[in-house]
């Protein structure tokens, strides 16, 4: 699709704000976000630390609810959804990749993926998902036996194995060197192309932006910049 065809918006947000209140202190993490994300799109989100990227991603993923404004996924109103509906939404549509991998230490790579496929509607084989990220031969290792990059790839396999409609990645390469980071990004790119998953990748690394259909920059809780890449770069050509 590459952003050329007039695709349908899957996400729509309007005047989205999020305020954290902690005792006396109020932190305005988001101050009015209006955004549309389209089916099959790969979006990279940039922004200074504290600009509200993770907050936005959490709200899109149904982990958190906004303080005000609207957010919809297709015809699901995430603003007014209750806990049960949000759980349903996450289970059926969303895959997450977290900055700190967050694998379950007592489960092997395969079992970590199975923990998700077991409750998904039409998942891939856990083995196939791990093969996709190049870990076919490490399936029975525990997280503590894997390197940081390998752990992050297991986390990606876990996220894509359920064949989510949206894949939300919070600094998936944050802790990785460039070569490993590229492997991880390639896996995400492949999943996006092959399954048409709407993908959002948060990063601090501007060079990653070249693999995106669209790049959105947040600063101080607002969208400060937004542009389309004329062509998506193959992540394998990136380096930093």
């Amino acid at each position: 699709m590459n952003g050329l065809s007039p695709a349908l918006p899957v996400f729509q947000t309007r005047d989205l704000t999020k305020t954290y209140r902690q005792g006396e202190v109020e932190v305005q993490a988001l101050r009015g976000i209006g955004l549309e994300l389209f089916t099959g799109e790969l979006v990279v989100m940039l922004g200074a630390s504290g600009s509200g990227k993770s907050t936005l991603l959490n709200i899109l993923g149904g982990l958190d609810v906004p303080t005000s404004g609207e957010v919809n996924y297709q015809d699901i109103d995430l603003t007014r959804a209750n806990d049960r509906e949000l759980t349903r939404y996450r289970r059926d549509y969303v895959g997450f990749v977290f900055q700190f991998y967050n694998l379950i230490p007592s489960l092997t790579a395969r079992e970590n993926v199975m923990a998700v496929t077991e409750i998904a509607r039409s998942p891939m084989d856990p083995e196939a998902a791990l093969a996709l990220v190049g870990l076919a031969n490490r399936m029975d290792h525990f997280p503590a036996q894997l390197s940081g990059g390998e752990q992050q790839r297991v986390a990606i396999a876990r996220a894509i194995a359920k064949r989510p409609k949206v894949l939300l990645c919070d600094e998936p390469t944050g802790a990785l060197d460039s070569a490993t980071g590229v492997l991880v990004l390639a896996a995400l790119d492949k999943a996006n192309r092959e399954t048409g998953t709407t993908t959002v990748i948060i990063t601090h690394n501007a060079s990653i932006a070249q693999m995106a259909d669209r790049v959105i920059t947040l600063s101080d809780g607002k969208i400060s910049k937004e542009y389309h890449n004329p062509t998506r770069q193959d992540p394998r050509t990136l380096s930093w």
Partner: protein
Amino acid sequence: MPFFRASALQTKLRRELWQMRGQMLAIALVIAGGVAVFLLSLVNYSSLTATRNQYYQDYQFAEVFVTIKRAPRHALQQVAAIPGVTRQSGRVEGAATLEVPGFSDPVSARLVSLPATGQPALNRLYLRYGRLPAASRSDEAAVIGSFADAHDLMLGDRLDAIINGRRQSLTVVGIVESPEFIYVIPPGGMLPDFKRYGVLWMAQDALAPAMDMVGAFNSLVLQVDSSVPIPAVIDQLDRLLAPYGGTGAYARADQFSHRFLNDELNQLKTMATIFPTIFMGVAMFLLNVVVGRLISTQRDIVAVLKAFGYSNRQIGWHYSQLVLVIAITGLLIGTAAGLWLGRALGELYMDYYRFPGLLFRVSPWWLLLLAVLTLMVAWLGGWRAIRQAAALPPAEAMRPEGPARYRVTVTERLLSWIRFTQPSRMIVRQLARRLGRTVLSVTGVAMATAVVMVGNFQLSSVSLMVHTQFARVQKQDLAITLTDPVSQAALFGMARQPGVRYTEGRRVVVAELVNGHRKWRTALTGIPSDAKLQFVVDEHLNDVPIPPAGLLLTDFLAARLAVSPGDHLQVRVLEGPRPRLSLPVAGVTSEFLGVSAYMDLAAMNRVMREGPVVNQVLMNLTPGQADTVYQDLRDAPRVMAINIRQAMLDSFYDTLAKTFLTYTFIISLLGGIIAFGVIYNTVRISLAERGRDLASLRVLGYSHNEVSHIILGELAILLVLGVPLGWFFGQAIASLIVTAMQTELYRVPLIMTDKTLALAANVVIISALVSGFITWWRLRNLDLVAVLKTRE
């Protein structure tokens, strides 16, 4: 395809349980302790109750009992005519001294007649071996099992009996048990003494002539139709038998053997409630702490699971399973241990409760209820933590737990005069910062201490009770209960016998004490005002002087009758001229064994309208000459029973004390397990929480021992605070138990010796040392890289 494929979460559960198996087992054992104590008591309670009920029913145990001076047999027809009486059995009873070959101590026996038909209509005999005495044979006797066992009597063995002053040779033809003598205690004694007291059954035609009771009876037992109130029958019976010297009929509730068995059963019931409650409380507390901490270390996992669409319910169920697995493990271990111990203890009871056999009973409904309760209690223990996990907002869970706002605490400022090393500073700061958690840990240590104390204080309390009774209170070596009163002048004769140092007489009568609707049938003892041998003492073991007028009551009895000093009590003496008196309660006494009422001997002789007579003789013997005295006593007429102090003491340790101490030993052992469970978990959790800090310190160059100092120092502080608090808790719980377990037979005083306190502290400290060592060992092998690699 495997038959059963575990889900990933089940795999997680299994691995984590295995990884924390030490901690989990420690908690499971605490639960097992509660379950075992409960089952142990329940099994004994239900088995003894079922056995007794079956025995009573099968062997026609009577419902009303009465002793008479002498009534003609034709009076039985009048008895039968009393409305409600369904069966009756008039018997001849008597006392004898026995000579058992090879045994020199005086032995007394109760003799009971059997009708010509063999088995009586009521209080039928269970034949263990042999047969009943033949109606025509005056030299045959059936002997109660306790006595036969104590002397290894076999069928065909011979005994000499001195009945009413006449020597008679008896052959043992049967060894029997009777529902009337399940708990066999000599008259005048409080404790069983199987060697020196027995019950013998002889044919009516043999016993009646020996007792001058031909054509008469002096003991009557009845059964009553269930539609007729027993007190009504007793009333009529008393009126009917008064001319024949009836001493007042009484119901089962006042029958000696039945009454003590009842007490024992009630005590079991109490134990089955108190101890499991304590144990389960501790287990719940532990689960609360352990599961709470476990879950707090898994916040990020909970978050990921939620992010991927696991529902609150699934998360809650996952952690509930953890708790339930622990609970079920505890339940299974506890059930097995409880049934086994219950059975073993039941067999011990059989040593001094003479039943034909023990019916091992435990209701499946109780087991089911126990299982449900255990699982519920365990789940409730973990509930707070489980609910917190389930309710954790998924985005929240991605952040490290809680606002870890370190600050220089008040405690630290207060202690600023100490120059802390950095590790010590970490200890103080951690304890003060997590104040709630510290309080929980200190409470845990305190509970551990208290539980050990509760199991243990009874050992020293019971020893003290017995020591007090037999050394401080009963100074006589020997107490002789006579069948009929003798003049006090006879005492001087006795005192001159070789081997006798000192004698003192007492007058004991059966009386009913009445205050409104409260009644108590007991012995009323007349004590000479200058008594030197058996004192009555108050709760501080000081002598209580015998008031010239009025009664002294055992405090337990005063409480049952709801009277206090100054109140008046109706006294119905059930012997002799059967005077009815109204006497003031002059004071209370605090014997630990038995209950009694006392008054001045001279005053008693006056109300009994008799001269200066006594029917119980207390003696002190010249050391080494006991056998001479025993020899003389064998041939003495009118001796109903002889209680030898040393023998009672021995028999106490042999019988009652054995079960009691076995029980408390089991409790102490379980207490020790709990103590270990609490301490071990406290240390392990603190290790788990601090692993990262400690690894960081190690990386910075602190030595293994310096780092261990942090965990062990923390533990030391918990002990210093927890153990004294535990002593306090223990004292409170113990006093609760002591109050709940008071019976007519004995009342264990609340004595906390230094030994008990020290033992409790030691168990806790040793648990701490072992746990500390395990920790030290773990820290030695701490994989620095692995710890630092995992995300906090």
